[in-house]
């Protein structure tokens, strides 16, 4: 596993999850997640996914170090999410970060792209459940861990304002 692919995996993960790099690193699980995806799908698929992501970012680069979100969104949809091979893997990377679990890929995928190990649903470690991003996303703790304290449930949830406003329907 090269440092560079780890960096790229982090960049990909930031775009897929909308959590910042520091938050992702804070889970302490980024290395294990990359290793999990490799173990499940094979190195080749991971490289292709990272390549496609690099290309998508390049499509959207604004020349001053940032990118245009609308262009990036379109590029990710075209290059990754709609791709038979990469789409299911990318969606699994999202679920891995949010739920701490590798969800088995369907036979259609494993039949075409080998990697039987991808078909098995598995938790990565006992800690990965607790570090799922789903919980901070909804302003809650993972049930059974990281207890927020007596009576905390009577307070309004700690969910970023932009999601409270943005929402409904």
């Amino acid at each position, binding site marked *: 596993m090269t440092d560079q692919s780890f960096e790229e995996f982090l960049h990909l993960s930031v775009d897929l999850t909308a959590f910042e790099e520091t938050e992702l690193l804070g889970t302490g699980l980024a290395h294990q997640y990359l290793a999990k995806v490799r173990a499940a799908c094979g190195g080749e698929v991971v490289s292709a996914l990272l390549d496609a992501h690099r290309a998508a970012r390049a499509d959207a680069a604004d020349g001053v170090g940032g990118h245009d979100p609308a262009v990036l969104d379109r590029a990710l949809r075209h290059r990754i999410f709609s791709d038979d091979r990469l789409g299911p893997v990318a969606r699994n990377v999202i679920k891995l970060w949010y739920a701490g679990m590798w969800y088995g890929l369907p036979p259609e995928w494993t039949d075409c792209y080998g990697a039987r190990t991808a078909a098995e649903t598995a938790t990565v470690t006992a800690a990965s459940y607790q570090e799922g991003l789903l919980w901070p996303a909804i302003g809650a703790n993972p*049930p059974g861990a990281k207890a927020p304290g007596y*009576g905390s449930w009577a307070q309004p*949830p700690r969910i970023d304002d932009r999601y409270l406003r943005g929402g409904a329907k």
Partner: protein
Amino acid sequence: MYAKFPDGAARRTDPAAAAEVLYDAVIVGGGIAGAIVASRLGEAGKRVLILEAGPAEDLTLRGYEAYLDRFYSAISKDNQAPYPVVANAPMPRGTDARRIFPGAPDASAYIVQNGPFATDTTYTRVLGGTTMHWEAKTLRMLPEDFRMRTLYGEGADWPLGYEDLAPYYTEAEREIGVSADVEDQAYLGITFDEGYVFPMKGLPLSYLDRMVAGDIDGMPVELDGEKRELRVRPFPQGRNGIPNPAYDGGKGYVPRGAVSTYQVEVGGRCQGNNNCVPICPVQAKYNAGKTLAAALRTGRVDLVAQAVAHKVHVDERTGRVTEIEYRRYDRPDSPGFTTMRARGRLFVLAANAVENPRLMLASGLRSSSGLMGRNFMDHAYLLAWALLPEVAGTFRGTNCTGGITDLRGGRFRRRQAAFSVDIHNDGWGWARGAPMTDLIDLVDAGGRYGESLRQGLVDRVSRQLQLAFMVEVPADPSNRVTVDPAITDSLGNMRPILTYDIPEYTMRGVAYARQLSKRIFARLGAEDHTAYDPAFWGYAVHTGEGYEIRGGNHLAGTHVMGRDPSTSVVNADQRCWDHENLYLVGGGSMPTVGTSNVTLTVAALCLRSVRVMLAQLASETAPIHLTSHGAARGRSPEVAQ
């Protein structure tokens, strides 16, 4: 205070040596019922043996953490996920339930389900029993629940009234450590002693509860000509809160923390882990390990684990129980066992309302009333789910802090079942597997990622409201537990066979519950997402409408108590009419379940029975001679009801 489990207590008793002892009492089952009886008899100086089917290390923090790890790592986080599967003492699992087709019982899991209705009801066979994973709601029954036949012509009357049980409710609230406020809990006839306060103050309602209360408090409802207003009310809870200094005439209350560790680490106040079911990581929630630790500390209580009671032996002439034959398995994962026996002056079956009758029937003891195993009851749960117009921060707090209890009693019970309504802090988890199913759906089908995923999660999950209507089920003799010598588990114990249908009376309550949920959602401006799937294993149709019905895990009725030996199995003291030194304790003794989760009542009944057991032991002081076919003799006292 912390509940120290004495070192080595789970293994200190040698079963061979125990077979030579004539105990004052032999108790089958180390759940809350068995633990309460054992602790009180032990404290009164009696020698007690507990036989526990599950494997038992000492209840140490490490052992408890092994449960937690198993839970964290489990792919399916169902309510048995933390507990080891032991083929020698199998247990039902919620995920076992399958739709049953006429004439084809489902024997794929431990409980053989004969139908017609399939249930996912479960219990746990580990030391501490089902309280290891209960939710710990601790409602008292209503006074009218004890007089259903007289008042409403439905169900049965108890041989006891609320007033008879009230002092034991108080004691049970101390034992379990209940957090609640009297002013919230005195309704529909529930009374408390002058000046009573609960051991700990009530847990605050959740933000979600209060959002619901904002629109529901004051909602008018008219049923059977009676008008009432609904309100969101906190539930009494068997989990540690803030001790009430006024408790016990100003003496206060010291909460019991985790078993075998110091409270500064864990076991203090509930911390809002939202994981009460299946396991509270910090043991803020009561589990029977706390009572067992106290029982074992008396030094007079012995415990043999991996000991599955196999047969109750009775002296044919006197009807008295002479011994309990049990199978002690050597290892949880292999079927080897040794047959052992336990002898005592009294015997107490505390294995729960499925396992007690299972064991009695497997021993050929059907009760001269013929009612052993009959009148099986549980609660029928109907769920209704919706999205609130605003973010409520669902998924925080204990599983449930508040609900609507105004329809637990009233004249309408002549016609239809009463219910209590839970507001679930864990959203649509029970109904639809939220929040994981929402995540998967948003990602896989919704094409969401990044910001739109985060937004989608807040919109879809943090606004979830799930109401759980816990509907009463009246006793019906054809709902029953039976056995068949040909159907056994790996240790050769007959498995329970359950025949169960949801009575019409309950279904009328269910239909009304659904109707009420629509009104509640409309008042809240919530989007109703409730849809009942005809392929669901617990799908039941009533007057053309279909509903998903789930089991309540509140097992009862199978060795019903009464005044008349021809219409009941045990008397008000839970003593068998047929066997004067045998007590069948637990939910099985209850003639009605009303609308309270049963355990507080089970605890109160056990505390009451202990007094009678002590009186019986005192009166039968003559030395007891046991021979292989002779049995102990002695007159038992007439026990006041």
